[in-house]
């Protein structure tokens, strides 16, 4: 059902595009887009698809690339690796897409990355964050246009090294992402602050409804700071359930990615003021023409402020487009070469795709939630940008992790 709707949707887009311009006489450049479009991923992936569409519309309005239009073929991977592999094969073999992008689920991203390697198709992962994708599981055809668990964990550790806290507790969803994030944070924290202690760890399952026992276990350990990678709907539930226990008065709390509007909007005024959060995208930072322009265009298209997903999709599409423009061909090998080391202007500021590991140097925005008179929800205050170059694997570290290219 879902798939039919999306196929119909992308078919309509395709028809609309081909009517729009005479340049469509040439076959379009096809981009396969894979996301888990249902469940807890939906608040991120729906805007992500809009982000891809926005970028494609902008590029096509200016005449496309190499005289050809861009065309998206969107598929639902159901956040399941086996479905992702099936759909990726289908996109490559039946739809004959030229490139692949998308993916929010780390397991799906790793599985599809194998398919990309097998068929020598260029893949730009837009959201999924497991560091493995660009480390030990990396290969010539896999790229990531956003940060990863290592970059985010290390950035959080740098931030905490500036603070006086010593007693830390860690928590996160009980799967690859949560454990990897905590590990990357703790390793770096112990390096920067050898006297830091981990007094408790708690692993609620992904999609937990009742956080009461987790909240009590955390409070019992009396930490000064709780490091958390609980995200999305789970974060909303956690905050709402923890508040009446006076949780946010008894300990500080830092939440990876939870400064994004995806959770700030629904939490509204219930978000605790002063909570430490990072954001994947902020509509008010950096205050650059590129960001203002992106926010204005998204608002014009949807009537809403862009959620983080929109920026993920938009940036991934532009990385691909600029690489094709630079390569002057859609030949995969040449586009891969063009994408290595490519720097593009994005709503986040300029981002470079590092040649050695195909990992974008997107940094981290950290801040503390604050109330403002102009918004009914809390926004990021005292923003600090921790650049990707400070937190990425050094080239020395990479040598041991990645085989020959």
């Amino acid at each position, binding site marked *: 059902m879902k798939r039919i709707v999306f196929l119909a949707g992308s078919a309509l887009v395709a028809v609309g595009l081909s009517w729009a311009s005479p340049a469509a006489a040439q076959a379009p450049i096809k981009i396969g887009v894979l996301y888990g479009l249902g469940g807890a991923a939906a608040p991120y992936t729906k805007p992500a698809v809009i982000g891809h569409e926005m970028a494609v519309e902008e590029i096509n309005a200016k005449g496309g690339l190499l005289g050809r239009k861009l065309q998206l073929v969107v598929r639902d991977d159901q956040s399941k690796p086996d479905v992702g592999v099936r759909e990726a094969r289908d996109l490559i073999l039946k739809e004959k897409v030229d490139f692949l992008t998308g993916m929010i689920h780390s397991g799906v991203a790793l599985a599809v990355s194998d398919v990309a390697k097998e068929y020598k198709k260029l893949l730009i992962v837009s959201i999924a964050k497991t560091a493995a994708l660009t480390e030990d599981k990396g290969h010539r055809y896999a790229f990531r246009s956003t940060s990863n668990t290592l970059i985010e964990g290390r950035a959080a550790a740098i931030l905490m090294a500036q603070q006086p806290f010593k007693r830390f507790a860690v928590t996160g969803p009980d799967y690859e992402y949560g454990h990897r994030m905590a590990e990357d944070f703790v390793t770096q924290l112990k390096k920067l602050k050898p006297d830091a202690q981990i007094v408790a760890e708690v692993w609620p399952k992904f999609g937990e409804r009742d956080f009461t026992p987790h909240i009590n276990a955390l409070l019992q350990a009396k930490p000064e700071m709780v490091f958390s990678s609980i995200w999305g709907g789970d974060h909303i539930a956690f905050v709402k*359930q923890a508040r*009446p226990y006076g949780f946010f008065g008894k300990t500080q709390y830092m939440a990876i990615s939870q400064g994004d509007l995806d*959770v700030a909007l629904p939490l509204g005024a219930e978000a605790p003021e002063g909570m430490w959060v990072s954001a994947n995208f902020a509509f008010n930072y950096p205050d650059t023409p590129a960001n203002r322009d992106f926010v204005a265009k998204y608002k014009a298209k949807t009537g809403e402020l862009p959620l983080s997903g929109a920026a993920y999709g938009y940036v991934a599409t532009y990385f691909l487009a600029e690489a094709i423009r630079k390569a002057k061909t859609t030949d995969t090998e040449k586009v891969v070469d063009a994408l290595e080391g490519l720097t593009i202007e994005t709503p986040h500021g300029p981002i470079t795709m590092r040649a050695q590991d195909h990992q974008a140097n997107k940094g981290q925005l950290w801040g503390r939630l604050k109330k403002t008179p102009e918004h009914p929800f809390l926004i990021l205050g005292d923003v600090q940008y921790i650049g990707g170059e400070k937190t990425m694997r050094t080239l020395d570290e990479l040598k041991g992790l990645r085989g020959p290219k």
Partner: protein
Amino acid sequence: MFLFLIASGLTLIFGVLGVLNFAHGSLYMLGAYLSFTIASRFVGASSATFWIALVLGSLGVALAGALIEMAFLRPVYRRDELEQLLVTYALVLVIGDLVKLVWGADNRSVSRPAILAGAVDIGGRDFPTYNLVVLLLGPLVAVALWLLLSRTQFGRLIRAAASDREMVGVVGADVGKLFTGVFMLGAWLGGLGGGLAAPVGAIYPGMDVEVIAESFIVVVVGGMGSLTGTLLGALLIGQLNAFGILFFPRFALVFVYVLMVVVLVTRPWGLLGKPLAR
């Protein structure tokens, strides 16, 4: 206690109608979304708004339940259990997509009523007032259901229909209407659970699947069709979960499943269920 409310609807429908209702989680989700919509229609989150939204929302779900029963379940009562399961599973997909069409895919959230937002001091520890209210509501619903089933004409008919639906039909009761009523009641419980869970969690597409798995564990452990068993199952699983998280944080999830396996191996019909006579 949320789990008990939701699971009690599931066990009621299975006990009387003999249908394993996979779509029960969808009804729960519908309850959450409906009370979100009603609550956000009224300006200002006064306590009254929340209760009105809860009552109207859960009644809305009951109504939807009635329609579902009449349109989709009635034709399959006499069919194979597998076919019934397929129908209710199809409903999960349909309701899931409908919810996305109507409410979109974003996370949503409802505010707690202001007077229940705080905590009360019990033995030197803070206990959230809202959770306390739900904690009291659970047994209240259990007692009300028990009274309904054991003391009223409606309840007697339900129990009779559960053991022999043809006979009830023969003695002149309208079995069709009775079943619709039971399904409505079950749907109402699911919707009520959703409405009550809404202010302490996020509302998003996919919450249906999360809850149905947990409810099934509760019902299986407690005993299919047994209301007291469901209550016992919900309490047992809650305690076991808290114990695991406190002492074995990395393996906390395992305990609940181990309990389920042990129960299934030693008493396949559940702690307080009755063995199936075949």
